[in-house]
């Protein structure tokens, strides 16, 4: 009896999850006027038209490219910086390590809206002068993705006994030798999951991305708001763009699937 | 309390390709303290899970007092189990931990109170009753999980899966004594799984030695030590283990290496092995005719005696000599294998003997 109940419950939940997505998917295969007139999940006049417009339009293509670029830069910076920091937290005790960890966590608490104003100034002309470049958005996102990456990597690193570091030193490895030849392969799954979380956080963020860019680093977020701002919404195209924004996530999650559960452990608290 | 029987039990985790345990026929009489002894991976924990009902065997039957309970769940079999690392309900205090199985059975509160206080008394947990279980050390936690087993009136058997592994050495002694007292006082059927022969032989009146999924021999600790019925049992019981030599039948005994061991009863056929415990090898510094001359490679103290590793007549073996013997490596030692302590094996089992010609 319990088995059926839980099966029913799960299918119900999956339906709840899937319906809005399927609705957008079906819209992406309809022409805009069919969307406005006919309300059905199965498109009557099935068309690839919307995808064609999006994939050929230089504006959308550059928006996709820009988003992917700054998200990639953010992930790379986050990993390069988070790996040593997580190693320090996992291997050493030092003055203020707990407070530092909580402070890193608090950064994650800051609402995006709060920082819009000062970030625009920080990255604007008088500040770092990076306004409207991929670096601006990437660096702004690191404020949120570094704490998370440090947290996840520290969890994976603490799973590896310190005796392995010592055995490597005894065998004659120098620190860099040990770190890259022995340690990094051991925490590769952790790096994968941390990269996944940083990529995903940066990919989904909207406020920073839209306020720190104008034209040549114009990300998806800005392109979407712009197209929504116009008079009549071209729903077919927007739906197609929406579906395409799902692709990076689905691809990446496939790669980290077996370590995802462990990544979510975040056993630090 | 109950008599537990396993009839033709076998189990495979990979659908029949390999068997963790096969053709097991064992009986644990009501109220007997017994042990399942064997190296890691010999299938003893699998057997324990089959008895407790946590695992349904691929084939064979489990009988409780003659009744077939193979399909019943642990709860319906009323068995209790103590695990390798202490398993306690961390958020409950000690009292509620002990009362937990009784509350699940809707036992009236006053009877619960009476039984829990008595069990806490036996297990010396009374001072901790109000404390949260998570706060206690590994030894106390193990006693709590023991308590959960014996607090119930209808427990058929208490199963122990290497319970002393995480307990530090000096506390092990107390817990071992507590287990024996528990058995003496409550007369419960207890089955103790371990790889440590010391724990098994101390705790149990009946020990089953297992290896690679088979139950080789079941008997009292002394019998396993004096008359091992398989070479592995001879090797595994006793420290150091039994000397084993390949042997070929002769008219008046058996030949091992280039020495003939005189025997009144002689085995026939091939694939024979002779086994003798180092402490049963008779040794003397001066020569006797018919004795084997051996050279001492090394003599080391074993705490209460001297163990000599010797080689002679093409054989390498060990001999135990009294602590104060002046034996040093390089000396010559004359040894004899007394017949009453010599075991002969064929194809891994006791060889059939016939009167010598």
């Amino acid at each position, binding site marked *: 009896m319990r088995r059926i109940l839980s099966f029913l419950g799960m299918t119900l939940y999956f339906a709840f999850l899937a319906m809005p997505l399927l609705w957008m998917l079906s819209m992406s295969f309809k022409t805009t006027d069919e969307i406005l007139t006919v309300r059905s999940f199965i498109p009557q006049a099935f068309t690839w038209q919307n995808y064609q417009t999006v994939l050929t339009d230089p504006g959308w293509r550059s928006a996709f490219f820009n988003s992917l670029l700054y998200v990639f830069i953010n992930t790379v910076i986050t990993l390069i910086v988070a790996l040593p920091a997580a190693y320090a937290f996992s291997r050493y005790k030092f003055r203020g390590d707990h407070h530092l960890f909580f402070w890193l966590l608090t950064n994650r608490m800051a609402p995006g809206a709060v920082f819009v104003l000062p970030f625009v100034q920080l990255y604007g002309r008088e500040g770092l002068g990076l306004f409207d470049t991929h670096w601006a958005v990437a660096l702004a996102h690191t404020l949120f993705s570094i704490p998370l990456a440090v947290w996840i990597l520290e969890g994976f690193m603490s799973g590896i*006994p310190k*005796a*392995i570091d*010592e*055995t*490597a*030193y*005894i*065998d*004659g*490895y*120098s620190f860099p*030798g040990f770190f890259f030849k*022995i340690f990094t*392969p*051991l925490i590769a799954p952790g790096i994968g999951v941390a990269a996944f979380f940083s990529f995903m956080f940066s990919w989904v963020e909207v406020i920073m991305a839209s306020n720190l860019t104008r034209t040549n680093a114009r990300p998806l977020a800005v392109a979407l708001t712009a197209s929504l701002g116009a008079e009549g919404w071209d729903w077919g195209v927007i739906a197609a763009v929406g579906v395409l924004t799902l692709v990076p996530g689905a691809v990446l999650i496939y790669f980290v699937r077996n370590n995802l559960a462990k990544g979510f452990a975040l056993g630090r608290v | 309390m109950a008599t537990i029987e396993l009839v033709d039990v076998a189990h495979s985790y990979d659908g029949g390709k390999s068997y963790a345990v096969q053709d097991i026929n064992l009986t644990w009489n009501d109220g007997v303290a017994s042990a399942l002894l064997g*190296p*890691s*991976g010999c299938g003893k924990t699998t057997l324990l899970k089959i008895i407790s009902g946590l695992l349904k065997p691929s084939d064979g039957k489990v009988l409780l007092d003659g009744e077939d309970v193979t399909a019943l769940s642990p709860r319906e079999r009323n068995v209790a189990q103590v695990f390798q690392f202490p398993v306690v309900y961390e958020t409950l205090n000690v009292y509620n931990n002990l009362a937990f199985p009784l509350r699940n059975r809707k036992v009236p509160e006053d009877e619960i109170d009476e039984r829990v206080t008595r069990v806490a008394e036996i297990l010396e947990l009374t001072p901790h009753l109000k404390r949260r279980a998570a706060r206690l050390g590994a030894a106390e936690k193990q006693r709590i999980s023991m308590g959960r087993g014996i607090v119930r009136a209808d427990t058929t058997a208490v199963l122990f899966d290497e319970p002393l592994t995480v307990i*530090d*050495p*000096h506390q092990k002694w107390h817990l*071992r*004594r507590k287990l*024996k*007292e528990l058995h*003496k006082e409550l007369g419960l059927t207890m089955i103790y799984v371990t*790889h*440590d*022969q*010391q724990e098994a*032989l*101390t705790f149990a009146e009946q020990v089953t030695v297992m290896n690679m999924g088979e139950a080789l021999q079941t008997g009292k*600790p*002394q019998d396993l*030590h*004096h008359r091992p019925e398989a070479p592995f049992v001879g*090797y*595994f019981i*006793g*420290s*150091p*283990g039994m000397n084993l030599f390949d042997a070929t039948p002769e008219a008046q005994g058996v030949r091992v290496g280039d020495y003939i061991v005189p025997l009144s009863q002689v085995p026939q056929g091939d694939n024979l092995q002779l086994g003798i*415990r180092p*402490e049963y090898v008779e040794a003397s510094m001066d020569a006797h005719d018919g004795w084997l001359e051996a050279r001492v490679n*090394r003599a*080391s*103290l*074993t*705490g*209460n*005696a001297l163990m000599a590793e010797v080689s002679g007549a093409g054989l390498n073996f060990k001999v*135990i000599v009294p*602590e*104060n013997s002046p034996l040093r490596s390089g000396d010559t030692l004359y040894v004899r294998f007394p017949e009453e302590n010599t075991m002969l094996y064929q194809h891994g089992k006791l060889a059939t003997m016939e009167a010598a010609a």
Partner: protein
Amino acid sequence: MGLRLEHIEKRYGSEVKLREVNLELERGMFLALIAPTGTGKTTLLRVMAGLEKPDFGRIIVDDEDVTHLHVRKRNVAMVYQQFINYPPMTVYNNIASPLRVAGKSADEIDKRVHDVAEKVQISEYLDRLPQALSGGQQQRVAIARALAKDAKLILLDEPLGNLDYKLREDLRLELKNIASESDAIFVYATPEPIDALTMASHAAILHDGHIVQFGDVRDVYLRPNQVVSGEYFSDPPMNFLPAQVEGGVLAMSEQLKIPVETLQAPLMSGEYIIGIRPHHIEVRHKGESGTVDDRYLRGNAEVELSEIVGSDTTIHLKHHDTNITALSNDVGFFDLGEEVSMFIDSQQMHVFSPSGSLLASARAVRG
């Protein structure tokens, strides 16, 4: 090749882990460092290896002060209690790793790896991953890697602690053979006396962060210089019975009395502690009499527990509310609570002062 520790001190915050440790070891020595778990053995090993710097004192290897030399540059190897190997590497690469780092040539590495793998009997597992092996095999891989390095100092921190009872027995002999073929210094930390007796050439008793006794393993075992070394270096633990001497008679209880001159030790009246190892106490069922000469002190006691240990039986006795442990060389069976008679061999009694220092060794082992 010699290793010398001079006035070593090590502190973790307020807790003093090592105090005034002095030690001198020669090539080919196998030292057993004996102390209960968690009393500083591991710290001393880590200081010897260079994994931790002493707060005070010097470490000299072949007359060269290496105290501040990083562990990487020291010619040392270590085996941990939990089997530490590099999970992503095969067994072959695990063993070869120190040689590769030292830049040895490929075929030299290959020969060395096969030679060492042969010695620890894991030749057929060379291409497997460590996790795929049993605990015992994994520890053999760790030992092989320590040997491959041909280090002058090999440190083992209770390497057999996590292994099956029988496997420990086999590995002790194997380790003994391996050590006898190598001229490196072996330092083996353990709380188990049997490890020291089977493998070691020398023994050191570590108590309260300080080496209280050091010497040839038989000397330290037979002639403990204080209560603590007797206690740590015996399994089952040595009995320590309070005793008084009055009017030339040493008495441990009403029944257990002996004239001082039979002990051939100059003891004035006063308080003493008698140390006697369990296997020097005979236990017989009440009825059995048999001839017993006067060197044995006779007393009756109640059996609390009898435990079969390998091929012997440890018997825990209660004599006038003092607990005494005896050991018989046979697998005998005594029931809980049984009244038995106990015979203590007076020639095996060590006499200690109440503060624990040795006054007179047992007559049987005197020099």
